[in-house]
């Protein structure tokens, strides 16, 4: 019976993770996995083959209740922007849990090489994951803001790694016959290594690190599965271990950093993605085309701001296709036409008429400006000066006094252009550094074509 529950829980994890991979089913997938987890926990407690003392049961239930309340409240209270650090924290809890299990079980399996391997692995991996996650949490949190980097850092780091592994292997080979304080030394080493692992890494790479630590914790959980020959722990742990690894790779890819450079040495190093040559130290956020596709697909209202770049790229046909596609998914789409967008009066009209964009979809600046506030996504394609807030704020700017499209009122601003270069007026655009802004770099035609392809797959 218990095994059946475990099987069901295992299945719920597999299917849950699968569902988490699709926007439409993700929420349900999470719920499903949670249900499976409840089954596994309840089963473990209430279908335990041997009788359990009331006190122990009370303790267990107490811990569960306390944990539930704390976890729930923390998770509900946290602000959207702080979620990644929360995840990191929770991950650390999981690692600590695995380490504690190993600490307790160590004495019970003296002499059993196999079990000892599981225990030691669980202790090491769990501890690294724990201390690493805590550091990641503190970094994201801002508590630990400096990126520490000792001089011969790599050396020290690798030394610790070798020490930890060596001691761990020795313990296993001696099957737990060594004194307990050696175990404590191992624990300490692992904890320190976790700290060393994460401390030098910059904020931008943190999500990758968390994902990696996450898959570590998965492995730690799996070691527990080995120990108890418990299938649900094994399934859950291995699943998270492998899925987490792939996810880490995928995240690296999305950030355009090879995983190898993340794991070895180059880890951190300032975070290439975070600072695409922003002037004045400002930083620019990159967005992948897939993310843009999802964002648009789940929007209610999208306003497209075409500019000279759209004409240069001759992307008028694709943008019309995008518009039709979004409309067919009942996203409202309009074009905001700035009076001097392009290089001749009415340039955008000429362009969009060519691809048969309905005249009704073209909205003048005065009319569209109040609409941005109720807009989910503004997609700026090859426009620059006409959305440059300096025109309003900077009296020394050559475009000061020109009315602009007030796209910063919208919830998300996505700007597609090939680079950070300036437009006709030759000036920098503060909008690119706006917190709501994401950039999608590339030729407009290429980017929009891919965007349409991505959208079609959703």
């Amino acid at each position, binding site marked *: 019976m218990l095994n059946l529950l475990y099987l069901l829980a295992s299945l719920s994890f597999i299917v849950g993770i699968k569902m988490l991979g699709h926007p439409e089913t993700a929420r349900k997938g*999470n719920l499903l996995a949670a249900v499976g987890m409840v089954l596994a926990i309840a089963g473990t407690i209430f279908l335990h083959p041997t009788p359990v003392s009331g*006190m122990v049961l009370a303790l267990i239930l107490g811990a569960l209740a306390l944990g539930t309340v704390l976890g729930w409240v923390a998770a509900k209270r946290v602000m959207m922007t702080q979620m990644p650090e929360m995840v990191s924290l929770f991950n650390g809890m999981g690692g600590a849990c695995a380490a504690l*299990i190993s600490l307790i079980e160590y004495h019970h399996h003296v002499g059993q090489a196999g079990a000892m391997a599981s225990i030691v692995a669980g202790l090491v991996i769990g501890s690294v994951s724990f201390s690493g996650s805590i550091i990641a949490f503190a970094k994201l949190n801002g508590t630990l803001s400096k990126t520490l980097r000792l001089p011969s850092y790599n050396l020290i780091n690798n030394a610790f790694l070798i020490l930890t592994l060596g001691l761990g292997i020795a313990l296993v080979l001696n099957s737990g016959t060594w004194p307990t304080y050696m175990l404590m030394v191992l624990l300490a080493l692992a904890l320190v290594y976790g700290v060393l692992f994460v401390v030098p890494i910059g904020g931008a790479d943190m999500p990758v690190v968390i994902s990696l630590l996450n898959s570590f914790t998965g492995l730690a959980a799996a070691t527990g599965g080995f120990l108890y020959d418990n299938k649900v722990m094994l399934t859950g742990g291995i699943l998270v271990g492998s899925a987490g690894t792939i996810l880490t790779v995928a995240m690296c890819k999305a950030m355009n950093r090879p995983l190898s450079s993340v794991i070895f040495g180059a880890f951190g190093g300032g975070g290439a993605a975070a600072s695409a040559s922003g002037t004045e130290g400002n930083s620019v956020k990159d967005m992948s085309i897939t993310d843009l596709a999802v964002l648009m697909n789940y929007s209610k209202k999208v306003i497209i701001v075409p500019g000279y770049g759209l004409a240069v790229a001759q992307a008028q046909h694709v943008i019309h296709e995008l518009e039709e596609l979004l409309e067919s998914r009942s996203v409202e789409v309009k074009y905001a036409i700035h009076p001097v967008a392009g290089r001749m009066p009415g340039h955008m009209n000429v362009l969009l008429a060519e691809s048969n964009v309905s005249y009704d979809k073209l909205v003048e600046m005065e009319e569209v400006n109040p609409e941005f506030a109720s807009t989910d996504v503004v997609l700026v394609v090859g426009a620059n000066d006409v959305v440059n807030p300096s025109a309003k704020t900077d009296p020394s700017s050559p475009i000061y006094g020109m009315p602009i499209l007030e796209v910063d009122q919208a919830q998300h601003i996505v700007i597609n252009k090939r680079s950070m270069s300036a437009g006709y007026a030759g000036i920098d655009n503060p909008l690119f550094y706006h917190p709501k802004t994401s950039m999608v770099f590339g030729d407009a035609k290429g980017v929009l074509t891919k965007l349409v392809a991505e959208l079609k797959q959703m």
Partner: protein
Amino acid sequence: MLELFEHNLDLIYFLILAAFVGVELIGKVPSVLHTPLMSGANAIHGVVIVGAILVMLNCDPNDTLNLILGFLAVLLGTLNVVGGFVVTDRMLEMFKKKK
């Protein structure tokens, strides 16, 4: 070595297949889902709590130290599980169907 392999054949197939499933499942996930997926996976490895519970269940009721450690382990595991699922759910709110 080969012996170890032969003895744990079932386990090894299991591991390989499970790892494969994990890899295949993630396959081509849109990158917006990276964070929620990580968070969901995070909650799932909270299954380590099962181990913590087992520790306590098998614990001598008088072994206070281990009981305390066990209690802590269960508490931490619960935090991982509950916090993980709830945070994931909140992250996924943005994918609610509009209208």
